């Protein structure tokens, strides 16, 4: 009897140890990647790196200001397009989940999530860039906005579906019209989900290169006009890492480091906001 208990105890320990071992093993590559980027990138980081344009080959120094400004503008415009659409579609899916249309919309969202980003880039090239005749930051933002939609829709839908139906009924039973019940009761309760979905989707698309190759195209200079070609951090990394020059490689590593830190920061902010705005019911 004693032996049986002891062998159970050891099996338990072994199982627990096994789970921990595999967890650590699978985390190691991630940590190595992070470590390598930090090691390669951190040496280029200084104040000049954030306020200067890239320098021509042979000249020391140079920064990524065009990419930083470009990424900020492109992602901001993409968010302005995607968040309202995403929230409204998510609201529809949660409110009318029994409708046939709702089923098909949900299916489309799932398919949209699986479309390779390069394909989206090409589609926007055909639909926006070609008709307007030139590359533009706006077309890049549209491509990114389409990529942002599925996570925003999903997280809005999931959050709103968790709200008990009786809270909606409480409002309707007070004689409050349906649209006001949605705007004043339901949406404020879903705010944390909508926002965390939005921020997560921003951190997802901030690093996208492929949809921008044929749309925002890139720009060696600072540009704030969204109707003209614009640089972005991933485009800058793509162009400079593919070059043959050591200085440019260094710039690309620095830019990668900045990009990763931005995404890390966004993820932390999301976690904090989620906790802070969580609503008890």
């Amino acid at each position, binding site marked *: 009897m004693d032996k049986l208990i002891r062998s159970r105890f050891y099996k338990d320990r072994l199982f627990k140890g096994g789970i921990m071992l595999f967890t650590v093993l699978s985390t190691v590559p991630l940590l190595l990647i992070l470590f390598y980027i930090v090691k390669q990138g951190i040496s280029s980081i200084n104040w000049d790196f954030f306020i200067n344009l890239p320098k021509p080959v042979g000249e020391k120094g140079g920064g990524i200001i065009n990419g930083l400004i470009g990424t900020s503008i492109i992602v901001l415009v993409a968010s302005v397009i995607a968040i309202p659409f995403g929230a409204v579609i998510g609201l529809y899916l949660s409110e009318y989940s*029994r409708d046939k249309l709702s089923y098909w919309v949900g299916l489309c969202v799932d398919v949209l999530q699986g479309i390779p980003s390069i394909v989206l880039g090409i589609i926007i090239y055909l639909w926006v860039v070609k008709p307007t005749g030139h590359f533009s930051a706006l077309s890049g933002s549209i491509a990114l906005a389409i990529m942002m939609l599925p996570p925003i829709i999903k997280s809005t839908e999931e959050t709103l579906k968790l709200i*008990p139906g*009786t*809270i909606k*009924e*409480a*409002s*309707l*039973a*007070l*004689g*409050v*019209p349906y649209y*006001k*019940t949605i705007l*004043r*009761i339901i949406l*404020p*309760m879903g705010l944390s989900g909508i926002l965390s979905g939005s921020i997560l989707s921003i951190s997802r698309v901030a690093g996208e290169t492929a949809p921008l190759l044929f749309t925002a195209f890139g720009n060696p200079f600072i540009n704030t006009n969204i109707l003209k070609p614009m640089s972005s951090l991933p485009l800058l990394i793509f162009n400079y890492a593919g070059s043959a020059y050591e200085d440019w490689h260094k710039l690309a590593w620095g830019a990668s480091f900045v990009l990763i830190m931005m995404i890390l920061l966004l993820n932390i902010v999301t976690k904090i906001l989620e906790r802070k705005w969580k*609503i*008890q*019911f």
Partner: protein
Amino acid sequence: MENSILNVQHLNAYFGEAKILSDINIQIPKNQIVSFMGPSGCGKTTFLRCINRLHELTPGARTEGSIYLQEEDIYKLSLILLRRKIGMVFQRPNPFPTMSIFENVIAGYTLNGIKLSKPQKEEIVEDSLRKADLWKEVKDTLHKKGTFLSGGQQQRLCIARSLSMKPDVILFDEPTSSLDPISSNKIEELLLELKTDYTIIIVTHNLQQAARTSDYTAFFYLGELVEFNTTQVLFSNPLNKRTEDYISGRFG
């Protein structure tokens, strides 16, 4: 019946093809507590939800027949007006989680876009909370979230929220089924106090609760109104065999 506030005639209710209520005729007396009892699935809650037309929210749900609130056809009244005249308290406490206690009580006004001055608001909130016997417990924490209260307090907050609209009738859908015995007791006592100003309809599957609190009792079974009488007569001398069987615990 003299002094009736609600007059229901030949009411049928359906969910899609399924008939939930058939040919309900009842007159609800004013300023009394009326309980609807019956086994689960007998249609008592559906009937309650027909009275403030919440039943129609469910996809595929519809009704036939007529309900009059003091001579007025409720299907001709605007939903907003009808639901201001007929308040409702639900099975589980459901205060609005984004709002404070104060905002919850006054929600019927703010959400309907009715403008009130600050003193008016304060008066309504205090008055409603006093009537719901909650004022003493929350008067110092009016601006805290309503969801921090205990279950029983939350339910009384929901009652205050209905009272603030000064309704004629208040519908209670098993208001104590999710509460502990002490909180339930408090709600029952509250009902007795409220009947001087309001007509109260309470759905319950608890025989003792119906016997303790109500003046009139209606017994529903399989979508039919089997018997409606004063609580005393219905419990001591039921006319119908099914009522007697249910009361004596032979089924349900």
